[in-house]
């Protein structure tokens, strides 16, 4: 059955971790949660393929984990707080993961954050339905730089 359309699917660049994704990604998230124990982190590092066999994962989910394709993991039902434990196992911070997901270099991402972050202007809605009404006041937003160009 295809995923039921949700109002929040209209938000660009966002995978909302809802009940449907939670069901689908149970194996991803249980794998990530297992990395809270140091012995498991060591076992995973020693042999990733073997370690992953303990969890109910589809081939696509296994591949996303192996490639550290965080967006792929989220789309297939992973949650960012769980995925961060894989990042931590690799020695990475949340900001590192965020830059990877944003398709940005670490430097460019850091610079974007220091400059006030990714602007919401132009990043609210895929359909345009979520954009504020174009009154005289709100059109000011269109002159703001679009954060996505920096991402």
């Amino acid at each position, binding site marked *: 059955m295809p995923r039921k359309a949700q109002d929040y699917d209209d938000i660009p660049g*966002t995978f909302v971790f809802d009940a449907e994704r939670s069901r689908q990604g149970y194996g991803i998230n249980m794998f990530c949660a297992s990395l809270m124990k140091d012995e498991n982190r060591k076992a995973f590092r020693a042999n990733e393929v073997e370690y992953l066999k303990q969890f109910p994962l589809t081939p696509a989910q296994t591949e996303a984990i192996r490639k550290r394709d965080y967006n792929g993991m989220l789309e297939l039902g992973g949650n960012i707080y769980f995925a961060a434990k894989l990042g931590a196992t690799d020695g990475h911070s949340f900001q590192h993961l965020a830059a990877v997901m944003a398709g940005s270099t670490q430097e460019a991402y850091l610079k974007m*954050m220091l400059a006030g972050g990714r602007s919401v202007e132009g990043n609210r809605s895929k359909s345009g339905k*979520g954009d504020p009404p174009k009154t005289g006041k709100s059109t000011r937003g269109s002159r703001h730089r679009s954060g996505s160009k920096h991402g």
Partner: protein
Amino acid sequence: MARIFAGATSSHVPAIGAAIDTKRTEEPYWKRVFSGFERSKEWMAQAKPDVVIAIYNDHANAFSVEIVPTFALGCAAEFPPVDEGWGPRPVPVVKGHPELAAHIAQSVILDEFDLTVVNKMGVDHGLTVPLNLMFGSPTQWPCPIIPLAVNVVLYPPPTGHRCYMLGRAIRKAVESYPEDLRVLMLGTGGMSHQISGPRAGLINSKFDRAFLDNLTKDPQKLTRIPHLEYMREAGAEGIEMVMWLIMRGALDDEVDEIYRFYTVPASNTAVGHIILENRKRAPARAGKANRTAVRRNRKTIARSKR
């Protein structure tokens, strides 16, 4: 009688905890964040709450995807810091207040808030980072802390209105507790941020500042913000700001804004912080007898105004 005298909120970014733990708070990037909480620590040293009720969210640490409670009240005697994947934070064990927590649980469940009672629970940066920001880094936290974990990880979290009403119910519970305790509500999380997906890095200062304004002046307006708007405007993870409404719901309708701080960024997140006091101000720290006397005086004053 126990009563809630004030509320405070603070963001709870893990990188803030890491900066404390690795002693980088004096670096310019972090000093900008930490300097905003100097005043708060001074306020806290004066306020000296007897108990803190800390509303926070767990980040896939105490609660996995196996069990996801919407509201989970920590009724244990203590809550150790968990290993979030980087090793446990070197912070004191959080000591609870099991008697007050049990009383709150019983009261709010009968008030139709079906929360989960938790007697064994570790706590993560969601709780310990705001404690550091408000108390500094003591060897022991200065008072008992009751953790209230709110699910904001699995969509949908409770609505803002539900959170606000839970705050009201907690207040009622606290006020029916016989011991003379001064209780501080601490709301954590936010402000705007998105740490997942290609839109990661989203910040919306305009939304955040309006949220802070209304937290003081018009919280009812905030209770009507739908989840879609939080996620669209403040980022997928910005939705955790609903937790601040539990804090606000537990305060008087009219409050005094004592202090506010806002800066961008800490790692991926806009940092927001506010301290609100109820107008029927608790008297300066005094003995029980004194406090009763002051209360009596205040009643007299109130009566004389009528």
